[in-house]
């Protein structure tokens, strides 16, 4: 084992980790927006909305992320341009593919969270005279949020790990940068070991943070 290469290549790990985190945050935000829309379509009474939402979820969950990412990369072809040193012609399709993928899983989290709220809550709200929308907003969604947030935290952890697949379209996130170091020093193992530890530290601290937040939320009941 020789970690001497770190003095020369440490910055690749740092920038890769930063990019991975940025990608994960963007993916989760966009994924929640997409997922909310899809979930609302799926629980609506409109047959077309329902069908579109179900097909979306089934298709995304039934195909590999790797395929989706490469598909989006060739589908969305942009001219080369850089922001903060990131190659946007790769970064944008990559993040869109990740968000579209995560959106399907988030949609199921949100749908399950809403449907877990007792049916009597909607009925009580409607019996007072609230419209369907008002009942959702004031009564059902605030309760659903308590079911949704912890699961959404887990999705964040999943996205951090799965973003490593983006290395196949050469987005300089953590995994891609690891590949670069491996090629430069002709040693495959050590860079990968460091990368594994970095991923673990990221996901483990996030899990801990979420566990803490969840406990706080429960005691405020």
């Amino acid at each position, binding site marked *: 084992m020789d970690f001497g290469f770190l003095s020369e290549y440490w910055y690749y790990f740092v920038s890769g980790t930063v990019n991975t985190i940025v990608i994960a945050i963007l993916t989760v935000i966009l994924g929640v927006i997409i997922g909310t829309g899809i979930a609302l379509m799926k629980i609506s009474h409109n047959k077309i909305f329902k069908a579109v939402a179900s097909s979306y979820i089934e298709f995304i969950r039934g195909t590999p992320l790797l395929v989706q990412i490469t598909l989006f990369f060739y589908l969305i072809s942009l001219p080369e341009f850089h922001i903060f040193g990131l190659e946007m012609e790769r970064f944008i399709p990559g993040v869109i593919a990740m968000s579209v993928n995560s959106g399907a899983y988030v949609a199921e989290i949100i749908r399950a969270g809403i449907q877990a709220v*007792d049916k*009597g*809550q909607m*009925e*009580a*709200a*409607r*019996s*007072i*005279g*609230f*419209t369907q929308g*008002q009942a959702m907003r*004031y*009564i059902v969604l*605030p*309760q659903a949020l*308590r079911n949704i947030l912890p699961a959404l935290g887990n999705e964040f952890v999943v996205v951090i790990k799965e973003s490593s697949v983006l290395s196949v379209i050469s987005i300089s996130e953590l995994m891609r940068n690891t590949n670069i170091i491996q090629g430069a020093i002709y040693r495959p193992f050590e860079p990968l070991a460091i990368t594994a530890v970095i991923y673990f530290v990221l996901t483990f601290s996030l899990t801990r943070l979420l566990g803490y937040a969840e406990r706080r939320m429960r005691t405020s*009941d």
Partner: protein
Amino acid sequence: MINVKNLHKTFGSLHVLQGIDVTIEKGEVVVVIGPSGSGKSTFLRCLNLLEQPTDGEIIFEGINITDKKNDVNKQRQKMGMVFQNFNLFPHLSIIDNITLGPIKLKNQTPEQAKENAMSLLKRIGLEEKANNYPAQLSGGQKQRIAIVRALAMSPDVMLFDEPTSALDPEMVGEVLEVMKELAAEGMTMVVVTHEMGFAKEVGTRVLFMDEGKIKEDAPPSEIFTNPKDDRTKEFLSKIL
């Protein structure tokens, strides 16, 4: 006040309501009794369209609420409902449970709504629970709060769907007491219940339902002492 004409309701192949015709006048306390599965809860839930009737008409204060063009949310504000399982909003404090409707739907200021809610809470002796959450209350307290929540909208009629069925026996009394007071003040009430004592004492009229039909419709003094319908006789002989 409420005029029900030829009301039918089916769930799939199950014909739960098979033509209900009944008129409920202002100030009446109508108690609906009958065996389980007779359609009494479904009938009650049709009155404010929590169940969409398959056929028939419901006229409430001169408005046909079963008309597709009618926006029932307006009439629901005038029809308070109390459920078997209370259905208080667990994420809101007691005071917010009561004031949410008046503030959002009747444009009351939070101060007005709160003042009104506190005087209602005082009447049932739970004003010190205003800032508690539903999970901190007993079943009987929850149900009394649920009644007050419905009253805060100043309804013209109150619908009760087996309000004491989910309660511990020792808490039934306190809920019935609130309902009795309400009846004494002249509130129009439709009550689905198994509490025959309540039906006798407070009811002005008893509907006996079986197999989706009203089999007998008479004042309690008559129905309990001298039932006309055979099925009513059989039912009452089993439970009295």
